[in-house]
């Protein structure tokens, strides 16, 4: 293998290993990854829907979402492309709040988004304080490049599960693979077990 004299590449912190999953490096930037064009939606046209295995679909307009109890959280995020970003600050509404009082026998969730992106997550992984609809990042409204107005935030899984431009979740009895899962990425995506690809 040819080594390029004097090349070091982007600064890669071998940081505090307790916080960095295997195979990851810490970045100070916030890379923008996207599988397609950035959707734009007018806030007065925006809504979030919970549909599928529940008695009545529920939905919220932008105003209604903003009126719900919100949380400021600080989490580490881990992208399957190997970068991790520590102590990211988000503002949003817990999925638990949205599912409050919902009776369902669903075990699976499929998140769907403007632009057609989807991702699947077990229901238990978006409840119990593990997931949010995030509309603020670093004290500012979430930028469209990073999924604004609202993205799903599920930081304990690889970041492709934190679907940008999310418009709803479908509660399902059976599991339906989402966009990247259907193309060969891992169905669950636990960074601590390095579950990047199907079969890992």
């Amino acid at each position, binding site marked *: 293998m040819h080594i390029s004299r004097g090349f070091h590449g982007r600064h890669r912190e071998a940081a505090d290993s307790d916080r960095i999953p295997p195979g990851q490096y810490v970045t100070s930037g916030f*890379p*923008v*990854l*996207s*599988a*397609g*064009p950035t959707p734009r939606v007018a806030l007065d046209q925006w809504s979030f829907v919970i549909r599928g295995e529940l008695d009545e679909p529920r939905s919220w307009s932008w105003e209604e979402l903003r009126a719900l109890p919100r949380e400021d959280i600080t989490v580490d995020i881990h*992208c*399957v*492309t190997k970068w991790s970003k520590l102590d990211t600050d988000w503002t949003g509404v817990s999925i638990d709040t949205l599912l409050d009082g919902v009776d369902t026998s669903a075990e699976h969730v499929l998140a769907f988004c403007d*632009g*057609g992106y989807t991702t699947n997550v077990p229901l238990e992984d978006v409840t119990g304080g593990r997931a949010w609809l995030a509309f603020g990042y670093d004290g500012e409204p979430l930028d469209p490049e990073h999924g604004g107005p609202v993205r799903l935030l599920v930081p304990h899984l690889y970041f*492709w599960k934190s679907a940008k431009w999310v418009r709803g979740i479908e509660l399902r009895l059976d599991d339906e693979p989402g966009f*990247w899962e259907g*193309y*060969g*990425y891992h169905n669950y995506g636990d960074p601590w077990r390095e579950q*990047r*690809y199907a079969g890992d």
Partner: protein
Amino acid sequence: MLDGNAIAGTLDDIFGADMTLAVATCSGCGARGPLAETAVYVRAPGVVVRCRHCDNVLVVVIERGGTYCVDVRGTTDLRSILGP
């Protein structure tokens, strides 16, 4: 967002030949054109090639441990003129 020229090297690895002139037919809208003129997203967990007219996903390439996984289900037809 780039075009198919940006993945010419990757496509050459996969198909063993230059594919920028290969003509793909979109399974979404039927539009036909060279891969060089498709809308390509390379800053993602994989390469996503979309139809410039309807945004339908034409091709996805994922690389895992030295293996390329290529999905061309978004094209109903992919044609490349044989070399000399």
